């Protein structure tokens, strides 16, 4: 029997959050954490979490498993369980709506700030804006982000200043458009990032890189942004 300790909080009935202990019979199989969560929900239907695709595509089931953020649907028990114990908590640093569900408004507000869409003020060509294969290659490792928030909610700088530090997810997307050969708003984008918080709160400890379920590297993207700011200023 797997010992699971799960974070519970229902603001309508609970004065405070608490941890609930549950036993789950995994039949000795190396299930995904989401499977275990579904088994818990079968026992106690009041447990609440988000999920949708159950294959690491939608990014809705980011949770904290034994202290490490990740997508429950693609994290095998063998990767996180220690001494037959699994502690499930909501993503750290964001307000909890209920149980494992957090309010992502702050996270999305930062995403919105970087204007995550292509901007080009030249007349649109008849068919499409072309890119060379080399130019397109620059977007690899950037466009794949599924906005699961595992990275930003593992970043201490984002915990302390989620209203002013854009955070790894937002900055990765920021660079995705800074690096796009078809985007002409580079200067305006950079001008918005020069304050002491938006980018420069990153201290390079790479928690974000450690947890990204898509294997992306926000720290590297942040380094590129810093270099662009440096080049722009000199």
């Amino acid at each position: 029997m797997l010992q699971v300790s799960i974070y519970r909080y229902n603001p309508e009935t609970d004065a405070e959050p608490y941890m609930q202990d549950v036993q789950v019979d995994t039949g000795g199989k190396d299930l995904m954490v989401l499977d275990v969560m579904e088994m818990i929900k079968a026992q106690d239907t009041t447990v609440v979490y988000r999920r949708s695709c159950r294959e690491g595509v939608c990014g809705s089931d980011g949770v904290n498993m034994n202290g490490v953020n990740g997508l429950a649907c693609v994290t095998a028990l063998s990767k996180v369980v220690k001494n037959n114990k699994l502690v499930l908590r909501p993503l750290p640093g964001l307000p909890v709506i209920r149980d494992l569900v957090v309010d992502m408004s702050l996270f999305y507000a930062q995403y919105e700030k970087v204007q995550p869409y292509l901007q080009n003020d030249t007349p649109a060509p008849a068919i499409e804006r072309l890119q060379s294969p080399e130019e397109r290659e620059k977007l690899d490792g950037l466009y794949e982000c599924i906005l699961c928030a595992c990275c930003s909610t593992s970043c201490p700088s984002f915990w302390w200043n989620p209203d002013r530090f854009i955070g790894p997810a937002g900055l990765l997307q920021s660079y995705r458009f800074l690096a796009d050969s078809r985007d002409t708003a580079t200067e305006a984008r950079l001008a918005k990032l020069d304050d002491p918080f938006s980018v420069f709160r990153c201290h390079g400890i790479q928690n974000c890189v450690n947890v990204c379920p898509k294997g992306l590297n926000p720290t590297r993207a942040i380094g590129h942004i810093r270099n662009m700011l440096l080049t722009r200023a000199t």
Partner: protein
Amino acid sequence: MVTAVTSLGRSGLYDWLMQRVTAVILLAYFLFIGAVVISGPGYAEWSALFSQTWVRVFSMLALLSLGAHAWVGLWAVFTDYFTERMMGSAGNVIRLVAQFVTGIIMFTYTVWGIQILWGL
């Protein structure tokens, strides 16, 4: 709210660059002083060393770098932990007091350093 008005250069890039440049100066200075200490100088050697203008200028530069480095670093720490988000409106007061104290200490060390180095 946490604002950037008390940061050193008001620009993240400027502060970041300042932090890097001052770190290099401090490293060079401590290597220099370390090498002197290892050579085991007595009072006469120390005195002769610090009577040279370039050593005094270098020391002054290191002291100013320390001040700037400490300001940028502590400013980042204060704006992480002493904030409205962390401790309510008291956070803003505590942060400003902490920054004020940091400034006074930096200023004192700088003036004191000038006094020592040039024997005023």
